[in-house]
């Protein structure tokens, strides 16, 4: 049996299994849904707008300078990150960490001054695309680009709840395959934090953590990657906490 035969057969199976749908009932249910439960949306939009105004007002001026330290507050509060992204995003510094940021990156650093970790937030437009490794526009789905990249191994996927609006996240652990060039592999041209190492994958520093954030029906907004590779569980936990706190402000 060919894949086409099986696919058509499986598609017909789905159609056969949906013949008993009650269209009248479904239409009624759908129209009912356009009423009551939608009333929550304006409230959420208003709440988001207020949050944006408060955060924008409190951080205005400071946000426009690069790498401004944000001391941890008694009560965690979101800081605006990623101003150069497709949409402003906020994140909450994990307890015991401070965050340096400009428009396109975040650096997390323990409050005691020990070495931190760079967390890049950016909108990739061009990547070095195999097999020629010429700089080319990123395809419409970076996850596919990564998962089909001949030099990379990827795994893992999860979603992140958005507050009041629909978006999803996909996080993929990326590592170089053992037979990749030892000289390192540049994946994309990046803006990077002052003094931070270039974000190139090498055999010695091969693990990066990514989060790709989508709005529904739109292009990916951001990719974040950490460098150097975090191996301290506390660092990884802090990164996950920061990533989980990311909220895209509704535009």
């Amino acid at each position: 049996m060919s894949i086409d035969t099986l696919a058509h057969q499986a598609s017909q199976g789905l159609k056969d299994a949906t013949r008993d749908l009650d269209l009248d009932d479904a239409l009624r249910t759908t129209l009912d849904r356009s009423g009551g439960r939608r009333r929550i949306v304006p409230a959420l939009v208003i709440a988001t707008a207020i949050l944006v105004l408060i955060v924008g007002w409190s951080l205005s001026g400071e946000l426009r300078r690069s790498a401004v330290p944000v001391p941890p507050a008694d009560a965690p509060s979101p800081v605006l990150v990623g101003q150069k992204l497709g949409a402003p995003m906020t994140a909450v510094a994990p307890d015991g960490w401070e965050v340096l940021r400009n428009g396109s990156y975040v650096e997390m650093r323990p409050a005691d001054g020990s070495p931190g970790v760079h967390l890049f937030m950016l909108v990739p437009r061009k990547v070095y695309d195999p097999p020629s490794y010429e700089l080319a526009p990123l395809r419409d789905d970076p996850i596919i680009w990564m998962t089909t990249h001949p030099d990379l191994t990827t795994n893992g996927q999860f979603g992140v709840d958005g507050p009041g609006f629909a978006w999803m996240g996909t996080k993929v652990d990326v590592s170089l395959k053992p037979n990749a060039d030892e000289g390192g592999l540049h994946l994309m041209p990046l803006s990077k934090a002052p003094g931070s190492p270039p974000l190139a994958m090498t055999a010695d520093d091969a693990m990066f953590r990514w989060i790709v954030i989508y709005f529904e029906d739109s292009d990916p907004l951001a990719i974040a990657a950490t460098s150097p590779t975090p191996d301290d569980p506390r660092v990884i936990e802090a990164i996950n906490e920061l990533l989980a706190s990311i909220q895209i402000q509704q535009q």
Partner: protein
Amino acid sequence: MDVSDDAPRVVGEPVVRLSDVVSFAAVFRAEYPGLVAIAWGLTGSRETAEDIAQEALLGLHKQLKRGAGIENPAAYVRRTCSNLAVSWVRRRMAEARALLRNGAPQGSAPALEASDETFWSEVRRLPRRQAQVVALFYGYDMSVADVAAILEISTGTAKTHLHRGRHTLAARLGLEPPEDEEVT
């Protein structure tokens, strides 16, 4: 209702154009079964699929209420539905809503044949865009160009996704690699 006969097949030329004459209900009746089928394949749950299909059509309804002109409502709801279906978050939310509304998954819902379920479970393992392209291509029996139009991507990109998806499926299902010339 015979879904295969009623479902629009040509995306570039919408079967139903919204106007004062043709109502939302007409679009709903034409599209709903096909949307449920596609979403079922992409989520593995009929209850979730029904919820997602309604969500997609609800989006169209909202657009119409706002007075937004939708040039191709069939493409709009199919794109929205396939996006919702491959969204992990939305799928989980939809399942939660379906459970809340229905109390529990309906045991009376017909199950798919084992071979059909095997195929769709492998489709769900594909990367997001590949799964969408495969589901639309086979589910609606449409051309790659029409799939590309629905997903608002280039035909070349859709071909690439379909090519990779078909080869991955064939390998995982123990079938011969597909002939590329078959895809148009």
